[in-house]
């Protein structure tokens, strides 16, 4: 090779050149070996690409050794994507044809990806290993768009009431009790900076879940805004009343310097949040403060069953249509959905399992601060499943921000939201009308329905049963 060349005539310069080629030769050889060996391994092992978001993307790597042992023919390549960039990254990857095989997505994104035809329907792949009724109904439904299932719930979250046990002996079960507690706390306290409730004005979940508790629909199936509806306006007035009576400070979340310290110090007695804050409070509150807080399911509007409904949050696992390794990827989804793996995932990440059977573990059952989530998870609802939802939610909090500062009342907020949201949905109505024409010609079901017929099916069966029961009598 070039390295062995006329050693006796070396002067300064050729020596350098020679010594360089001495290095190049083994490099080339090893590079060639690497290529050959990686080609060889590619024949036997299927490499699937998995995008995990934030902390979950980190933790999932610890579950993979077991998966690799069970499936030596598959290798999972995990890419961790930060939550803040994930949504944009997935969408641009879809447009740029560079989606992975399988990914974790926020369950509110599923309507968008199904509209884009980016995700694969999963109904046909479901097996006895993943029985539908082992999942919480509200959460499951967030994955169903137009009657088809596009994601498998991986972990779940929902909002409950966090409260100070030293200020509130029994958490409220109705809106009236809730208001009475806030009234008592506000009157008792001499500190002008004390508020019974913290409810940042730049968060949409609170007004949306209050409205859902009263049964407001927000957006109809044919893509029309329903914010002037009495149920939304009533819930929104209740929401505004909390600020107007001084039970909650009119501030955005960025003005809350440190939620945990302030809650620990007793600057407010309640807030509504998700399971992530259980971990945060445990990490950050001092020892003496630890015994002084707990969680409770949400209070319900008077005359409705307790607890009041909450939101269906969490992440799902999806398969992408563009993937050529769907069978192998589905095995990963099946693995991550197994109850015992869900329990391990909870232990590693603190994310609540999506399957009821995983909730039998003593870790979860005997934890008083987690128990409320179990009760609440049976009472969650899926939000309108539209690709425009995030934009609509942003509008809701923008109106909440202005209304909480007294710029207009609940009825006016409803009117303004109707105008704004109907504008956003104009395109959707047009697309729906096109689909309706097409489906009436082809006699095919609609692909873009807002509310899955799952719910309606259940209602139809129930009605049919009632009808037969009536006939029997």
């Amino acid at each position, binding site marked *: 090779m070039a390295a062995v060349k006329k050693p006796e005539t070396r002067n300064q310069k050729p020596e350098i050149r020679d010594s360089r080629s001495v290095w190049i030769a083994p490099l080339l050889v090893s590079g060639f070996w690497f290529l050959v060996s990686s080609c060889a391994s590619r024949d036997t092992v299927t490499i699937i690409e998995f995008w995990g978001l934030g902390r979950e993307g980190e933790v999932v790597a610890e579950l993979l050794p077991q998966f690799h042992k069970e499936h030596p023919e598959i290798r999972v390549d995990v890419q961790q994507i930060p939550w803040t960039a994930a949504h944009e990254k997935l*969408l641009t990857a879809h447009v740029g044809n560079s989606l992975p095989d399988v990914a974790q997505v926020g369950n509110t994104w599923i309507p968008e990806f199904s509209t*884009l*035809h980016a995700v694969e329907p999963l109904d046909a792949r479901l097996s006895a290993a993943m029985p539908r009724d082992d999942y919480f109904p509200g959460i499951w439904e967030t994955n169903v768009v137009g009657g088809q299932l596009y994601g498998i719930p991986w972990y779940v979250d929902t909002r409950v009431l966090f409260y100070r046990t030293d200020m509130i002996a029994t958490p409220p079960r109705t809106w009236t009790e809730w208001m009475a507690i806030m009234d008592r706390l506000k009157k008792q306290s001499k500190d002008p900076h004390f508020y019974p409730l913290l409810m940042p004005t730049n968060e949409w979940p609170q007004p949306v879940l209050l409205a859902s508790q009263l049964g407001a629909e927000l957006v109809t199936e044919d893509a029309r805004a329903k914010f002037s509806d009495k149920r939304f306006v009533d819930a929104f007035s209740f929401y505004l009343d909390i600020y107007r009576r001084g039970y909650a400070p009119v501030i955005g979340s960025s003005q809350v*310097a440190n939620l945990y310290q302030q809650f620990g110090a007793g600057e407010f007695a309640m807030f509504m949040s998700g399971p992530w804050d259980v971990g945060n409070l445990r990490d950050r509150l001092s020892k003496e403060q630890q015994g002084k807080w707990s969680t409770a399911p949400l209070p319900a509007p008077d005359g409705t069953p307790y607890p009041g409904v909450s939101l269906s949050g969490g992440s799902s696992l999806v398969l992408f249509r563009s993937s050529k390794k769907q069978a192998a990827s589905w095995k990963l989804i099946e693995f991550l959905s197994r109850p015992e793996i869900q329990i391990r995932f909870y232990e590693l990440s603190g994310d609540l399992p999506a399957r009821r059977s995983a909730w039998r573990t003593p870790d979860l059952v005997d934890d008083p601060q987690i128990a409320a989530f179990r009760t609440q998870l049976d009472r969650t609802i899926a939000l309108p499943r539209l690709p425009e939802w995030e*934009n609509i939610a942003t509008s809701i909090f923008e109106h909440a921000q202005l209304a909480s500062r007294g710029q207009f009342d609940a009825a006016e907020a409803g009117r303004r939201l109707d105008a704004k949201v109907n504008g956003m949905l104009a395109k959707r109505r047009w697309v729906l009308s096109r689909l309706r024409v097409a489906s009436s010609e082809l006699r095919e079901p609609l692909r873009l329905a807002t509310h899955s017929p799952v719910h309606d099916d259940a209602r139809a069966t129930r009605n049919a049963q009632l009808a037969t029961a009536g006939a029997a009598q």
Partner: protein
Amino acid sequence: MSSQARAAVALLFPALLMISVFYLLPVAGAVVLSVTDFDIYSIGDASNTRFVGAANYGALLESPLFWKALTNTLYFSLVAVPLTVLIALGAALLLNAKLARFKALFRTIYFAPVVTTIVAVAVVFRYVYHARVGLLNQLLDLIGIAPIDWLGDARWAMPALILLAVWRNFGYAAVIFLAGLQNVPDSLYEAARIDGAGPLRQFWHVTLPELTPTFVFVGVITGIGFLQIFAEPYVMTPDGGPLNATLTIVMLMYREGFRWWNMGYAAAVAFVLFALVMLATALQAFMRRAR
């Protein structure tokens, strides 16, 4: 064609090709996009796209959010551009002064923010602007000013961003001013001194007139940059700040385009911004000619 012209064409061709493919073509694409309702439904199925004429522009002009973004951008530029130019000039004068020592060190210090990545800057400035433990509020506390919630208060979020943007960008302008100052011939100062002009009169009658072209250049460049301000508000207040107080035109464009996928509408925003930048540049060129 003469051989010289042929050579010129041959030499220019690669550059022109690149510009056409990577610049002119996308711009033409954006023009087409801006007269359609291209959105998420169109990505799913291209037949869901309609030609809408000027409807995007019409909707834009009727949208309060657009006017909010426009006012914010103008507010930002009208304050930040003169501030940057003045501070840069001051810094350049200090660096150019004969008495100044450690010139290389100070030049580096002034220029460091320009080349520091914005994400690192954002992390540091989040602390500086923190309502309770922030450095800025602690300094204000020393002179008896009550703490200000810099990024959370709709009135203060924009001034906080202006401060950050000026700090981050004046170094670049300062270097250009420094070059301008070093180009002023010493003979002019000598002549002024012989005529009995003090330092102030020398500055007013020699330095400033000699710096006019530099002023125009710095003004135009900073102005164009600030009308398109995006990185600073995006890293400090990704959701547009309290009550959209820091939502700029480019942020609106990004939000509409990449968060809501209203690409047609976002393209229309882009062209309004383009018109705005052209207008500002033309105005500056006109003022220069008038002088």
